């Protein structure tokens, strides 16, 4: 994907330390660099989620180390694990308690599709009741895959242009793939 150029310098203003940019770019940049995750750790994948937060993988490099267990303080829900029918309603309720804008990552085979648990108790993919932005395959996905999924989500946030439509269509090139439908990361 081509790099957007969100920042411009105006020589007339340089002395006064002013940077000119589009509102979109600034807000999306702020949003993407401080995504607070809501870790829905439901099963084994949660252990890899923990590992991503710990020293070796250090998700703090991408501004997402602030795991918030209160849905009202979080921006991105990472569903890590097997979602059973008993848990589905609660997951949905927590999702609804999160303030917009919000995003959802389905981490692992179980969250994406039910995985190896094709049984009477397991929802076959959380996309049955959540709008998933990024799917990560793997059972469990390696922490690197989670990080890649997260970086992809950041790109999607950057491309979302919440304010762009207020004026004219934006001329900056956008990867269409990021806006249309979910993204699949291979994580095994």
């Amino acid at each position, binding site marked *: 994907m081509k790099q957007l150029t969100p920042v411009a310098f105006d020589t007339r203003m340089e002395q006064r330390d002013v940077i000119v940019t589009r509102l979109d770019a600034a807000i999306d940049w702020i949003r993407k660099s401080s995504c607070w995750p809501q870790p*829905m*750790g*439901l*099963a*084994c994948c*949660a*252990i*890899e989620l*923990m*590992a991503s937060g*710990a*020293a*070796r993988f250090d998700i703090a490099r991408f501004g997402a180390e602030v795991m918030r*267990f209160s849905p009202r303080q979080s921006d991105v829900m990472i569903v890590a*694990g*097997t979602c*059973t029918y*008993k*848990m589905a309603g*609660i*997951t949905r309720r*927590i999702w609804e308690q999160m303030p917009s804008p919000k995003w959802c990552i389905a981490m692992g085979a179980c969250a994406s599709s039910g995985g*190896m*648990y094709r*049984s*009477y*108790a*397991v929802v076959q993919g959380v996309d049955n009741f959540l709008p998933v932005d990024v799917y990560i395959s793997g*059972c*469990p996905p*390696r922490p690197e895959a989670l990080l890649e999924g997260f970086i992809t989500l950041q790109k999607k946030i950057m491309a979302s242009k919440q304010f762009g439509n207020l004026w004219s269509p934006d001329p900056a090139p956008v990867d269409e793939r990021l806006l249309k439908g979910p993204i699949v990361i291979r994580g095994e």
Partner: protein
Amino acid sequence: MPDLRDMAWIDSAARAQAAADPSAERMVINMGPQHPSTHGVLRIVLELDGEEVINVWPDIGYLHRGDEKIAENMTYTQFIPYTDRLDYLAPLANNVAYALAVEKLLGVDVPRRCKYIRVICCELARISSHLLGIGCYAMDVGATTVFFYAMRQRELVHDLCETLSGARFTTAYTRIGGLMNDLPPEFLPLLQTFLKGLPATVAEIDGLLTRNRIFVDRTKNIGVLSAADAIDLGLTGPNLRASGVEFDLRKAHPYSAYEEFDFEVPVGTVGDCYDRYLVRMEEIRQSIRILHQAVERLPDGPWHVDDPKIFLPRKEKVLTKMEELIHQFMIVTEGLNAPPGEIYFSAENPKGELGFLIISRGGGVPHRLKIRGPSFVNLQALPKLCIGHMVSDMTAILGSLDFVMGECDR
């Protein structure tokens, strides 16, 4: 016992209490199923009098995935990956316990090298599980640093698992009658480096917690369980031993050559949260001892049973010999031909006694496979432990019990 599935129950219970208790001292609150201090999705309904817990109803089943039913629909070998996901903090130990159970049904005995490698697996799993258990426990009571130190070592265990089986923690390493492969040549040096570094981390954790005023104040004399109660409730593993009962399946009914190893079984004296922490720490040290012995005395020789009806023949032979090809075909399509019968086998897992009850009617598929998850039984102690304590002690008690919902709900 109220019907906990009825979410409206909390409201009606609260209303009933409000009528009975006009000064409104009592209240019913809901903890979980999504809550940072629960190790997995456990919902607990608490009845409080001010800050004091006067009633506890644990509500489980949020991670019920139907493992036992799934087992009835696949061959014994196909079920091995599912055992990884029972106690997902110690997959290697689950693999070993399951393989041993099926081998007991078949009546086969694996070679000594295989037994030793399995001991290495079990102890690695114990170390990694206790490290995470202690790390999360400390985080629950407010010491975040320990978690990072513990996770650093755990990553090395993951590296070892990766060399062993190719996966970071869903290993599926054992096979019925053997292992997935022999130890790779780079495994033992890696293990030795790991063993060299581990005591330093244990000492670090020890220094951070054992005499830490805050930690001690929050855990000492909290959640005391007497030996008699622990036995009555059926507790096993470190939680039982912390109450002063010296019972360890590795000593009581040695399996997989555990009788050849020299190690101690740590027991607690009081049975409180602090003792449960101490017992786990000591178990890590004992595991290091066992691992040293296993590496030193690792025997040579075959690492799987030499029976083509049970263990898959080597690929070279399958490609060149007709008979081997048929055996391979039979094992893969129909499963091993197990005799009819009913066996129970249990192994000392990091969390306690993990048991498998297999009822076979012959053939490659179990008629019924019942799993005795130690976490499920250990959780029974929750009401006994919590009642009478402050609500803030709940996190310490939950952390010290160190359960895993994957195995509890199955």
